[in-house]
Structures are given as structure tokens and as C-alpha cells.
């Protein structure tokens, strides 16, 4: 029982999730687990922005799209290796996030949600725009190749990709954990809960908000890059409102202001739709919708808060 | 007895504000609750109007009104001019007045009452189509009283009608209130920090300190008793 609360737990957990699937999972299952890692990073990006900083975004799918396209274009047009595209994608998305964060500063809660929602609606159209056709491949999108394992490692491409994504994810999760536990995290939460007090304490709200936006965009963009490599394909219609809302659902279900919640949220958005899909094409949406409403009423802190509540009760 | 309040307890969240108040408002005439800032005066009025949760008993014309919705209490005939006057800033003066008679269906009666209000407050008639938010503080207070009177209430609750107004306007408003009481037989429960002002028109007074009554009696007696005034009211 003390295993979960132990400080070594994250490391034990990491080694377990790295090794066990390689030994037992089929290639398709590995693909799914890789996508869980991808989604976990994206949801974590949204958690930082919305959960910790209180800026409600319904358009983070746009950053995911930019990350995916940066990687796809660099691999497709210039033959740059997949791993080398990720820093570019991170920097570009952080930049775009910063720029979008600037006008967002002036938008109080609801307005920001509305604007980012509009961004989500417009994203596929922008990706299809004919002036960028030469790079983006227009409606057709871009097909990219699955990378092989390097250094002659005895792993098939799916296994290698899983480990690669997991490594990137682990780095980002450690980064985020340290961030939210420290001074910056306290400032982010103070801005969310007590903006006036935060300002009085000398916190530069504008700077924190725009940088959080950049950070969130960077995480989400990296997720997009990894997602593109995993799926080996990018096309505009995959990056519309449903994608952004999927991240939103993942955030709410996992728990907004929680690092571990991002993992639970990612598991939810990866596996629940697959299960629901067997009932009807419309079922995943209905499940998302009803779950969202139910969580807002019953468990606004997400699954992470449920675990916190259960932990507090002596067994 | 128009209003009977028995061992009223009230709280905002965790902090208790009222600690068992007992008081009555008789039919006709003015009752005043005096006390300093934070004594619980506004809370008492809010409790009567069902705006906060309370414990104890509140009887209006013998009928328990506790737990009823604010709008239902208003419909029974309790008009409430809240602190800050409750002006509908975005609406015109006329619309503010029309809202005052929302619970009524007697058009002729409303028209008579409206004409009477214009007699008492001619300035409202002049500004009928102006946005209420553009009125001065004194005009807004007049509008608030007129709006409340259009409900044709049996009991009028007034929360600090003098607050933030110039002495001259305050005197005008209190004089008009006095006239309303005399001619209509209405009961008023007025809450005031300005004790001398309230005692001048009141029949009965209660003095509130941190949620408890420390003194009560006929307004005239308190007005005359210099020691009482000095020690409790500070004037």
C-alpha cells in the first residue's frame, strides 16, 4: 500500500511501463500505448495552462497541429531525422503560443474560451489553405515513414517508437513536476485563484500568463510531433474542434491541476472512445459529453482528486 | 403585530452575524434598528427578506415566512430598499418604477400610486425616460423608495436611506418618509447609522451591537434620555 505514496514510486512506475509493454504487448497495443504517451503530454500542456493557471483553452489542438506539421514537413521536404524535428517543433510552438498569449491576456475567462474555440474551428481551414499547399500537401496531407530503432538495438519500429515517446514524455513530466512544485507553480496558481492578491504580491501577471501559454503550446506541440511520427500521417481534418475538445475532456477527467491526472486523462481519451465506438459512431461523443457534465457536478477535480480523497481515508 | 421576530440567528458562511434577536414591528408607524457598522443591521433586513439562511422564527402578519423565496416574500407585501439602493442602472426611471409594481395587477391602483409618487418626488417625473444609472445618489434613493412604495407594501424595509447623501437631501427624504407614514398607515422598519435622524421619525427603536440588542424602547424616551444617548449612540 505504501508503494504508491513512496517517493520511489514514479521511477518504479516508469521502468514498469517501459519494460512490460515491450515484453507482452502486440504491435497494435504498443501503438496505442504510444498514443497514450502522446496524449498525456498534450493533456499535461493543457493542465498547465487551464488547470494550474486558470486560462481556459478550447483550442490547444491548434498547437498540436503545428507541432505535427512542423515535424511532417521537415521529415518530408528536407529529410531531417524525426528526433531532430522535435526541438524545432517545441521552439516554433512556444513562439506561436507566446504570440497568441498576448491578446489572450486581455480576454477574461469566457472570452478566452470563446476565442480559442474559434481557433479550433478555423485550424483545419488554415491548414488546407492553398498558399501553403506545397508544404502541407493541402487536403491530402503528408505521409511520413516510421523510424527504425538506432544503434542496431534489437527492437522493432513500434517498440522503439514507444520507448522514444516514453523518454520524451518522462523528461517533460519531470520538467512539469518541478515547475509546478516550485515558485513558478505557486505564482501560476496564485494568478488562477487570487489575481488581485497575486498582483499585490508583485507577481508579473502578464508575463506569467503569456509564458504559461508558450509553455503549454510547447508541450502540446511536442505531443503533436510525436503523434505525427506515430501515426505516420498528418491531414487537416484530424486537427479540428474534436481534437481540441478531446484534450479538454482528458484534462477534466484526469483532473486539471494535477500532473498524474494528465496520464489518467490520456488513458481515458485513448481507450474509452475505442470501447464506445463499438456501440455506435456517435457513442464516443455522447460519452464525452455526458462524462463532462457528470464530472463538473460530481468530481470537478477529476480522477486525480478522487485518488486524493481515497488516500485521505484510512483503509 | 405586523412582524414578529423570535431568536433570530444568521450567518454568512462560517461567521455568525446575528445571535438571537427578538423584536416586533407594530402595525403603522416607524421602527428603527440602530447600530454601528457591522452590528448586523443589514443582515437583519436580509434575513426578513429571505436573502440569507437563518434560524429562529419570523412571522409576518402571523404567518411564518422563513425559508420562503425572496420574491414570494415581496409578493406578500414586504418591500425592501436594499443597501446601495438596488437601482436598475441600465433601465430607465420609468422602467424602474414599473418593476416596483411587478406583483400587482390592478392597473388603476398602480396609476394612482404612481401619480402620488410623482407628487412626492417631482424630480422622478422630470427624469422619467432617463437611464436610472445617470441619476444622482439622492435621486436614486428617491427612486428606490418610490419603487418600493409601488408594491403597495404593508411593511417597508429601508436600509440606510441616508448613506452617502448630502444632509440637505437626507432631510428632504426623511421629511417625505414622515409624510408617507402619516397618510398611508404603512409600517416601516428602517436601519440607520445616523441615530438622531432615525429617532426623529421613529416610534420605537432597537439598538444593535455585534448581533445582539443592547437596548430597546420608545424612540421618544431614548431621544430624551441624554445619558442613554451619550453612552450608546454617541451624540
Amino acid at each position, binding site marked *: 500500500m505504501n508503494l504508491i505514496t513512496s517517493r520511489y514510486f514514479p521511477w518504479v512506475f516508469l521502468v514498469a511501463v517501459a519494460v512490460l509493454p515491450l515484453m507482452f504487448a502486440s504491435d497494435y497495443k504498443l501503438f496505442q500505448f504510444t498514443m497514450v504517451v502522446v496524449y498525456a503530454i498534450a493533456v499535461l500542456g493543457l493542465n498547465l495552462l*487551464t488547470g494550474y493557471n*486558470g486560462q*481556459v483553452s*478550447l483550442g490547444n489542438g491548434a498547437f498540436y497541429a503545428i507541432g505535427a506539421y512542423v515535424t511532417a514537413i521537415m521529415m518530408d521536404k528536407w529529410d531531417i531525422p524525426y528526433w531532430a524535428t522535435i526541438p524545432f517543433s517545441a521552439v516554433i510552438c512556444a513562439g506561436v503560443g507566446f504570440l497568441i498569449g498576448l*491578446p489572450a491576456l486581455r*480576454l477574461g*475567462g*469566457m*472570452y478566452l*474560451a*470563446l*476565442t480559442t474555440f474559434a*481557433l479550433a474551428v*478555423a485550424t483545419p*481551414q*488554415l491548414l488546407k*489553405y*492553398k498558399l501553403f499547399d506545397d508544404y502541407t500537401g493541402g487536403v491530402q496531407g503528408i505521409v511520413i515513414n516510421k523510424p527504425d530503432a538506432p544503434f542496431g538495438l534489437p527492437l522493432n519500429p513500434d517498440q522503439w517508437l514507444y520507448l522514444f515517446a516514453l523518454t520524451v514524455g518522462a523528461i517533460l513530466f519531470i520538467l512539469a513536476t518541478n515547475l509546478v512544485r516550485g515558485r513558478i507553480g505557486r505564482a501560476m496558481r496564485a494568478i488562477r485563484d487570487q489575481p488581485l492578491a497575486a498582483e499585490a504580491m508583485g507577481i508579473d501577471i502578464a508575463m506569467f500568463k503569456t509564458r504559461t501559454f508558450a509553455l503549454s503550446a510547447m508541450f502540446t506541440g511536442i505531443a503533436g510531433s510525436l503523434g505525427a511520427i506515430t501515426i505516420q500521417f498528418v491531414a487537416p481534418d484530424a486537427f479540428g*474542434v474534436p481534437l481540441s*475538445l478531446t484534450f*479538454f475532456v482528458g484534462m*477534466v477527467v484526469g483532473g486539471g491541476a494535477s500532473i498524474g491526472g494528465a496520464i489518467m486523462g490520456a488513458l481515458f481519451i485513448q481507450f474509452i472512445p475505442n470501447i464506445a465506438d463499438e456501440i*455506435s459512431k*456517435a*457513442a*464516443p*461523443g*455522447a460519452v*464525452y*459529453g*455526458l462524462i*463532462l*457534465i457528470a*464530472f*463538473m457536478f460530481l468530481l*470537478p477535480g477529476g480522477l486525480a482528486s478522487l485518488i486524493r480523497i481515497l488516500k485521505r481515508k484510512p483503509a | 403585530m405586523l412582524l414578529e421576530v423570535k431568536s433570530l440567528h444568521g450567518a454568512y458562511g462560517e461567521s455568525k452575524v446575528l445571535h438571537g434577536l427578538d423584536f416586533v414591528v407594530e402595525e403603522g408607524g416607524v421602527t428603527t434598528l440602530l447600530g454601528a457598522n457591522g452590528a448586523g443591521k443589514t443582515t437583519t433586513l436580509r434575513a426578513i427578506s429571505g*436573502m440569507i439562511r437563518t434560524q429562529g422564527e419570523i412571522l409576518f402578519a402571523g404567518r411564518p415566512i422563513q425559508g420562503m*423565496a*425572496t*420574491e414570494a416574500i*415581496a409578493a406578500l407585501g414586504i418591500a425592501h430598499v*436594499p443597501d*446601495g439602493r*438596488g*437601482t*436598475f*442602472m*441600465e*433601465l430607465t426611471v420609468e422602467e424602474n418604477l*414599473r*418593476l416596483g409594481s*411587478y406583483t400587482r395587477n390592478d392597473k388603476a391602483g398602480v396609476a394612482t400610486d404612481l401619480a402620488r409618487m410623482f407628487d412626492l418626488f417631482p424630480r422622478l417625473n422630470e427624469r422619467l425616460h432617463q*437611464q436610472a*444609472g*445617470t*441619476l444622482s*445618489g439622492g435621486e*436614486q434613493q428617491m427612486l428606490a423608495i418610490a*419603487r418600493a412604495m409601488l*408594491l403597495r407594501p404593508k411593511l417597508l424595509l429601508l436600509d440606510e436611506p441616508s448613506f452617502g447623501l448630502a444632509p440637505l437631501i437626507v432631510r428632504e427624504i426623511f421629511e417625505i418618509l414622515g409624510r408617507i407614514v402619516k397618510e398611508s398607515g404603512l409600517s416601516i422598519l428602517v436601519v440607520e447609522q445616523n441615530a438622531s435622524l432615525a429617532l426623529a421619525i421613529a416610534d420605537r427603536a432597537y439598538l444593535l451591537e455585534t448581533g445582539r440588542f443592547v437596548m430597546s424602547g420608545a424612540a421618544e424616551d431614548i431621544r430624551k434620555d441624554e445619558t442613554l444617548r451619550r453612552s450608546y449612540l454617541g451624540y
Partner: protein
Amino acid sequence: MDGFIHQIVSGIASGGIYASVALALVMIYQATHHVNFAQGEMAMFSTYIALTLIQAGVPYWAAFCITVPVSFVIGALIQRVVMEPLAKAPVLASVGVFIGLLLTFNSVAGWIFTYTLKPFPSPFGEGKPLFGGFVSRHELGSTAVTLVVLLSIWAFFRFTKLGLAMRAAAYNPVSSRLVGVPVNKMLALGWGLAASIGAIAGMMVAPVIFLDPNMMAGVLLYAFAGALLGGITNPLGAVVGGFIVGIIENLGGAYVVGTELKLTTALFIIVVVLTVKPAGLFGKTLVSRV
């Protein structure tokens, strides 16, 4: 030149739709300070109700007259059951619920009615375009319906006791209760009314863009843009904004950015308004002396 005039006429016709949805959004925003992200999906669902009735043999206008009150009830019920308990919840919670409603309506519609595009009849006939070919019958008819709706709503709020009480409840719920206005009922009525307006907008736009569960996504975005452009605190402004956005959308689509970037135009308008003039063109800044 002819083409230009035709674009303007079409712009006014679609602008009327955006103006209606923008008005619905503003009504709810004024009362609750919430932006109803599900407004479009609710309208879409209402349109499916109308189509179902029509396909069952109900005459068009009868179906219209049934759909509007049914939508009213759905809207009022949503307010009572889902929104009222969350009235004081933080932004994230209300956005979450709205998105939940959006997803639910969208997928329930897809479940029942499938995701295929369906033609929706116009009550104004196919016929030849009127006035020298500048305006189609449906454009003329739907614009007329929209204007009638907007005018009736305006008259309702301006001249009736109930309309006044609804406005009062939106502006100042505390004072409203004190004069005896049942505020929660007014909010439910407002939701019902907004849903009815949305339903009419849906039925008017469906013959043009065909009916499918995602039909209203674009319309909602233009309505957002219109509401913000006109001023989200000003119903009349939102209506004017809706018409302006309709015209901009059509002219822009025809002459500037091309049809592929129409939605992006809406995003652009939203961002520009919110950063340059957040109160909108006609947003009132109240002068108050207290």
C-alpha cells in the same frame, strides 16, 4: 457590379441568421455571463426535429410551429436541470458543461439521424430568383422571417411586463427578487427563448447549407463574431454585428480571401474586436454617478 450586389444581398440573408444566433447568445450572456457554446448544436437538434415532422407528413409551417415551442421547452429544461445548479461555479465548470452539452447534442443527433448530409425544404419555393435575379426566394423569405423574429423579440422586451422583468432579472437579480420577480423562472424563460430563436435560425439556414450534425459550427462562429463586433452586452448591437459579419463574410469570400478561409475571417474578427475594442462597436459603457 451585379455580382457585388448579389453578394451583399446574400450577406444580408446569412447575416440575419447570424444576427438571430448572436441575439440568442447575448440573451444568455447578459443574464448569466456565460457564453453558450451549445447554442448552435441546440439549434441543429431543433432543425432535425422539424425535419422529422416534415418527413412524417406534417406541413412545413405546422412543423415550424411545433418545433419552436418544443425547442423552448428543451432550452428551459436545460437551464433548470443543468445550468441553474452551476450558476456560481467558476468559468471552467460552466465551459465544461457547455462543451458537454455541445458534444451530447452533436452525437445524439448523429446517433439518431446519422451523419449524412440531408436536404431541408424551404417553405418559399424554388422558383426563379426575384428582382432581376439578385435575390433567391429563400433568401428573401428567410430574411423576412428573421426580421419578423428580431422585431417581435425587440417588442417583447421593450413593451411587455414579462420582457421588462426578464431584462431586470438579467441586469440586477438581487433587486429583481426584492420587487417580486422570480429570477430563476426568468432565466429559464430566457433559455427557452434563446433556444426558440436558434431553432428558427437553424430551420432558415438548413435549406442553404444542408442539414448534418455539424451544420451549426460555422454559424455559431459567425454569431460569436457578430455578437462581439456589436457588443456582447448590447442585444441590438449584436444583431447589427450579425448582419455586418454576414456581409463581410460574403464579400470577403468572393473578393478577398476566397471561400476556403471564410471561417478564419470570423476568427480574425473575434481576435481583432477583443484586442482592439473589447466592448464592441455599440457596447455601452454605462455612465453612473452614485
